[in-house]
Each structure stands twice: as C-alpha cells, then as structure tokens.
C-alpha cells in the first residue's frame, strides 16, 4: 500500500456518463493485481470529504500508469470527471484482495456495466500467462458496453448482452452464463442483482465475486464496510475483499 501524488494523463468520455482515466502512479501500478482497487481523493476541498474507491482496470508497468473506468453517479465522480490532464491527485493503493486465478479451469469472466473494469485487468493478466479467456459483458444498451477497445488491445473479444437487445443477447448477461459452466471457473463483477444471479448459477463450479461496499478508510481501520458470510461471520470488503469466494459471501448485507 502506497500513497502517491499521481498525475492525470487522460480523462476522456467513453460513453454517456462513462469515463476512462489514466493516472501516472508508478509504485502503485507496479504492485497492483487484478481485482484490487485504489482509493482516490477526487478533490482537495471539504466536499466531498471522503475518498472514493475504484477498481484498477489496467496497469502499464513500463509507463508507470493505472487505468480506471468509471461511471458518473454523484458528486464525487462528477468532481473526478472535471480533472484535466496534468492535474495532481492523491491516490492510495493498491488495496484489497484481488482475484485468485484457479489453475486447470478456463476462466469465464462475467461483467455487468462499469463492473467490467477489474475484469479487463484480469483478462489481460490471463492472456499474458497464455490462458484462454471468455468474457461475457452486459449493459443496458450497446453504447454503454465499455472496455472493448482496451480488451482488443490484447486480443480478447467479449460476448455482449444488452437489456434492450441493441447488441448481442437480449436480456441480462447472466442469461449467457448457464450452459457455459462446464470446466470453467467464474470471475464476476457488476451490480448486486447480477452477482446474486451468478451466485445461484455457479453453485457447482468455482466462482469469485468482486463486490462493492460503502467505504470510509479503505484499509480496514474503520470497520465500516462490513459484509456477511453465509455462515453468519463478518468480513471487511476493503481488506478481506473486494473479491470473495461466491460460496462464502452473502450478498444480503
């Protein structure tokens, strides 16, 4: 875990409300792993006060950069959207426990909306180590299927699903999951409803879920991001996760 004064290198619109940010933060870039996140101070003012967590979507060790893909949903992400190349931003990371790639199983990646971000990093690492990867990506509509440009750079094509049928399968991305589970290990990231569905479908295969929680510190110090395990135990999303074994974690708070 490092605290770096990162320089913004890029912050551009990818799709309505979706942006891609590249940060120069060499120490964090070097040590990041797929599924880990960074905790950003989006602005130096008192509002919004707390940091905001974002998954690492890509990293480039040579260039010393981190890429984030984010959706503007409120005050903090709106402030983030205002940052310009050359601006400095305080970045804490890499944080949390990421995906643990299981040997001997073909990875099946399932992403919903902006939740695809950590899966891009995972897909890139899988390719780098010579593995075959399948990636299913869901969004409300074709224009919101983000991340494909990045995936193509290392030769991964995703299999799309859209709620309105404007591209690929019509319906939730989980509709593509059943029937593809044989010999696979599932790695999923997306909204809670999608993750719950994946949890049900992947009952009989290994599966890991990248979940979100409300965070203050991001490092395990405040105990604010507590979530439940199926056997009634408690875990912290920021340090025990954000990636959990699907058979261990409960998504009901």
């Amino acid at each position: 875990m490092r605290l770096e004064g990162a320089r913004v290198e890029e912050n551009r619109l990818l799709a309505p409300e979706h942006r891609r940010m590249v940060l120069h933060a060499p120490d964090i870039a070097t040590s990041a792993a797929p599924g880990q996140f960074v905790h950003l101070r989006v602005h130096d003012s008192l509002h919004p006060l707390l940091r905001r967590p974002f998954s690492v979507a890509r990293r480039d060790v040579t260039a010393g950069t981190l890429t984030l893909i984010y959706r503007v949903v409120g005050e903090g992400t709106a402030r983030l959207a205002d940052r310009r190349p050359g601006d400095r931003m305080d970045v804490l990371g890499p944080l949390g426990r990421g995906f643990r790639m299981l040997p001997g199983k073909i990875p099946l990646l399932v992403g919903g909306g902006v939740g695809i971000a950590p899966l891009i990093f995972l897909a890139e690492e899988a390719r780098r180590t010579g593995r075959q990867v399948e990636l299913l990506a869901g969004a409300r509509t074709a224009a919101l299927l983000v991340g494909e440009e990045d995936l193509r750079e290392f030769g991964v094509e995703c299999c799309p699903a859209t709620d309105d049928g404007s591209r690929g399968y019509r319906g939730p991305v989980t509709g593509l999951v059943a029937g593809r589970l044989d010999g696979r290990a599932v790695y999923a990231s997306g909204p809670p409803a999608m993750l719950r569905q994946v949890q049900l479908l992947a009952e009989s295969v290994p599966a890991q879920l990248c979940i979100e929680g409300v965070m203050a510190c991001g490092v395990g110090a405040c105990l604010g991001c507590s979530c439940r395990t199926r056997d009634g135990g408690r875990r912290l999303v920021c340090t025990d996760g954000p990636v959990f074994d699907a058979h261990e974690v409960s998504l009901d708070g």
Partner: protein
Amino acid sequence: MADLAVNLAGIRLRNPVLAASGTFGYGREYAAVVPLDRIGGIITKGTSLEPWPGNPPPRTAETAAGMLNAIGLENPGLKHLVEVDLPWLAGQGATVVVNVVGRTVDEYAAVAEVLDGQPRVAGLELNVSCPNVDKGGMAFGVNPESTYALVRAVRRRTRHPLLVKLSPNVTDIVRIAEQARDAGADGLSAVNTLVGMAIDIERRRPVLGNVTGGLSGPAIKPMALAAVWRLARVGLPILGGGGISVWRDAVEFLLAGATAVAIGTATFVRPRAMLEIAEGLEEYLLCQGIERISDLVGAANPGARAG
C-alpha cells in the same frame, strides 16, 4: 528545535498528536504510510471483555463536511488485544492508550483490571460516549450519577492514567466532567461524535442500518472546540478532538485548553494527516518563537485552570 513532547495526565507523548479511537484500527492498517513511532500515540478501537459483532450495514454515510458512523463497537475482544495487538504495537515503538467499553460497570472494570498488569499500555480512555450501542457507551456518559459510579469503579482497578471520553450529546458537559474528576479521572477526552442521521429519499428509509449514527469530521469542529474551552475550567488535562483536519485546527484546540489532540476522520481523507499536523505544529512554534508546545495550552482561554 521546538519541543513537542507533552505529558497528558501522566501519559508521556513524543508529540501531542494522537490517533482517535476507532479510526486507526490497531495501528497495522495504516502502518505502511504512518510510522507509529512518529505520532504521539494511538488510541485503540473500543475494546470489550468479549468480542462484539457490531451493527448491520451500511455503517457509514457521508454528510456535508463530515460523516456518520454506526459501527457499534465491533472489536475482537480483550484477549486478542493483549495477545496479538499490544505485542505488535510495542514492537513498532507506539505509545498505546486503550479505549475501554462495556455493557455494565463490571465489564468495564474487568477490562481495566486485566490491563492494569500490562506495561505496554500507557493509559486508558474510558468510552462513556459511544452513541451506537444500546447498553454501555453513551448510556453512562449522559448522566452525572452513572458517570461517577463507572469512573469510580474503574479507578479502583487501575493504576494507569485514566482519561474519560465525554459525549457532546448532553446539556451540560462540564457537569459530567466534574463527576468524572471527583470519581478519580486523571484527564478528559473531548469530544466523541454527535448523534445524527441521514435519510435515503429514493428508498424512503434511513441510510444507516442502525438508523442513527455519530457525526464526525470538519462539520463538528466549532462545537468540539467550544466544549474544550468550557471543560478547561474543570482543572483536568484535556485530550481535545472533533473535526481537526489541519495543524491550524490543532493549534486552536491547544489554545482553548487541550494538552494534546486526537485526529480521526481526517486520517481517512489524508492518511498522513497526523504527521502533517505534527510538522505544522513544530513550524508554528519556531515561527512564533515558542520553545515548548505546552506553553500554548490554554493560552487563549482566561478560564483555563492548569491540569
């Protein structure tokens, strides 16, 4: 070189900047960016006799220039503190104050008794002010009689310097503080969080799982500062805090009558806030030509009685 060392109610501190209870875990969490031998000290998460599970999520919510928390004093219990955390903290050269909680007077007293034999503990902070649990915590600290009885019982079981952490959720904080003093407290810690809440207007229900929580951060600073100002006449040394984010805030608390300051929410925002504040204090002393930080304590407050 300016001298930042202070003696807070018998607790020797290398500088007057401490990590507030519940915002710095047990030191490990931030150790990669905050060396524990460079801050004044760490006040642990509220520690109970047995492990406590805490409240249902969501446990935190952001508000204007502040945040609400309703953690519910989740902690792994006294045994874990003694066997795992205290040895580790000692290895880091940290000065450790243990924040003590319980549901009953006996539970508080039992924790104090076990810790009495612990040379690795520099002092105790008695939490009679947590707003997020049904039994214990603030239930004691909003009432002068129960404050007196609790402090008295704990005082009998410990020779460690004893700070009593006060709640701002009372009509007359000075009256509660006087009871703590008369029952044998060595110092006061002020303030804990203010009761507050937020409502999600889309889902039409409270944001926090616990409905209400404790408000902390810059939003509470003026209130906390006024509390320290008033408490300075009680005649006990004060650990001041509530909303401190930069060194200037810390100077205000010292001038009002605090001997040392506790930093909480600011650490979430800027993990190195405590180090920056300690450096800022040192520069302030040099610029003002003041030799010792203790010369600032209560310097703006004619009503302050030396602790």
